[in-house]
């Protein structure tokens, strides 16, 4: 029956989302931490990222089940495993993918000691919340009489965009550091659907065996850059031109702060992507709404008056429902990301230490981070415990334990090495699943190469 396709569709997304970069956040004074908190403290004189390699990031996941749940070689019939996965599927599960590629990254300290950072990155973001009703309908068909298959929880968004940004990190005093970043978005494509309602169900008929219902259906999907009415060729140069301000344009801001509550306690926070995109090019919005019920075709066996039953049925359907395409501009909002942390630094002070690592006063830092996305499609919350330490004067490490909708056992690790002006970093999570990556419901990594110049003093 209707089995494997949906699962394959879901499983291919088992690498990336949520945009929670819990390992990278506030880690090692990396320039990239400014993208997660424009109010983060950096001690650079200036920095420049290796073009295309200063940050490569991919994240993703699916909350429903893992690849291993379906394809494990454990002697259980795959159909039984699919059935078990469907049975434990929640009311609605979400699948997501996010990828970022920093094309350009740089920054320098201004004469007034503020730090100006800027750059350009490309991002692909996909998120879909799939209601159980749709999985059931796909898996078992409409075989269950009177069961309502609702699209109420069906929401999705997908977009690809280029982001040009510039931000300022400003030290107010010894306790406060604040920052803000302005962003110009250039969208290659955008698709979103939300606030859908309505259901489909089948009941015993009166004049025929079954009666099918579409009940109060209200579906809307907005798209830009997906459907084309001219001869535009979709190739690499097209994507490049759209990323570089030839697409649908928008504007956004990030704000953040770092507050030293005491010498050892630090609080940070940021709000990212408070912004919108005005979708005006290649825009199409699809609408479906209405009620409809049908008991099939009532054959009348009148050879003198032959009927085109199917055409009549279609006409009835068209009269009862609205299927429309609009070409109207629309505004799409970026999913807002919230970060926060409380940390406690401890351990030997630099001055007392045999390492001359010149970064902060303490060798250890531990604390708690919160991450949340707030969006029309889906909101998400994750909590992270972390421990960060200077291993030696060249190397810093951060260990994280994260609880999020994917898992209660997400352990991540970040390493940042700096030799001379060269900084190389790598972060990844879900390390406990490394021995069986197929059992992970989510995974993410970031890596990059920077050249960081510090003040000689």
């Amino acid at each position, binding site marked *: *029956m*209707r*089995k*494997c*396709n*949906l699962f*394959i569709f879901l499983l291919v997304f088992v690498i990336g989302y949520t945009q929670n970069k819990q390992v990278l956040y506030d880690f090692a004074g990396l320039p990239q931490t400014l993208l997660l908190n424009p109010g983060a403290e950096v001690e650079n004189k200036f920095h420049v990222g290796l073009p295309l390699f200063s940050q490569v990031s991919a994240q993703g996941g699916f909350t429903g089940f893992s690849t291993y749940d379906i394809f494990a070689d454990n002697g259980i019939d795959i159909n039984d495993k699919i059935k078990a996965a469907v049975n434990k599927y929640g009311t609605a599960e979400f699948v997501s993918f996010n990828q970022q590629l920093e094309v350009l990254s740089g920054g320098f300290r201004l004469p007034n000691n503020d730090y100006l950072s800027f750059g350009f990155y490309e991002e692909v973001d996909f998120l879909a919340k799939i209601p159980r009703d749709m999985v059931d309908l796909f898996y078992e*068909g409409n*075989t269950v009489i009177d069961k309502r298959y609702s699209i109420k929880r069906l929401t999705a968004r997908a977009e690809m965009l280029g982001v040009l940004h510039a931000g300022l990190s400003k030290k107010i005093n010894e306790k406060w550091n604040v920052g803000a970043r302005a962003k110009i978005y250039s969208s290659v494509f955008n698709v979103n659907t939300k606030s859908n309602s309505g259901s489909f169900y089948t009941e015993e*008929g009166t*004049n*025929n*065996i*079954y009666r099918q219902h579409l009940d109060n259906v209200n579906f809307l999907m907005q798209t830009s850059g997906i459907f084309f009415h001219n001869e535009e060729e979709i190739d690499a140069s097209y994507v490049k031109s759209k990323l570089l301000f030839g697409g649908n344009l928008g504007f956004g801001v990030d704000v953040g702060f770092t507050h030293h509550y005491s010498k050892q306690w630090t609080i940070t926070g940021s709000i990212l992507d408070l912004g919108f995109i005005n979708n005006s090019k290649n825009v199409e919005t699809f609408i479906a709404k209405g009620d409809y019920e049908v008991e*099939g*075709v009532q*054959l*009348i*066996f*009148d*050879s*003198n008056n*032959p009927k*085109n*039953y*199917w055409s009549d049925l279609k006409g009835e359907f068209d009269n009862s429902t609205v299927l429309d395409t609009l070409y109207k501009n629309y505004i799409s909002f970026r999913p807002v990301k919230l970060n926060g942390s409380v940390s406690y630094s401890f351990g030997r002070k630099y001055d007392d230490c045999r390492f001359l690592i010149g970064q902060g006063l303490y060798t250890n830092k531990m604390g708690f981070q919160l991450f949340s996305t707030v969006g029309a499609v889906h909101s998400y919350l994750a909590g992270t415990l972390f421990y960060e330490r200077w291993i030696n004067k060249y190397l810093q490490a951060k260990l994280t334990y994260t609880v999020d909708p994917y898992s209660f056992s997400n352990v991540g690790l970040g390493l940042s090495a700096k030799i001379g002006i060269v900084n190389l970093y790598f972060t990844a999570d879900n390390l406990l699943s490394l021995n069986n990556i197929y059992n992970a419901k989510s995974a993410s990594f970031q890596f990059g190469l920077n050249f960081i110049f510090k003040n000689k003093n």
Partner: protein
Amino acid sequence: MNDFNQEIRFTSDFIEPPIIDESKPYLEKVEFTVITKNTFNRNFKLSITFYDAFGAPIYVLQPIINVPENSPELTKIIEIPKSDIPFIYNTKYFGFTIFLSPSNDGSVISISDTSKFDLKSSAKLFFNYRKI
């Protein structure tokens, strides 16, 4: 009955549903369910025939359904096996033909006869999406 209220031996009707080729690799089985009720004291036979775009019959659903005289509600399920699925995709329209068997005593149905022949049907399609 015909226009002159005379008994006719058979009558047909046709339906032309769109058949979506994309489902072809995945359609595993088709199950027709036919529910009949006959209060006439005459036997009926019901035949479902598939016709191609040229109007030629290419497949007849087997077995032909026999509806006995004065029969209560009867349910008959007929399966189109996988080997016969390709016929569906060559089908342009389906024909339903009802045959009226002659009476044993030579009587015919009159316009005043209040007997009824009820026919309900449905089709269940079984897909298997194992192909990727």
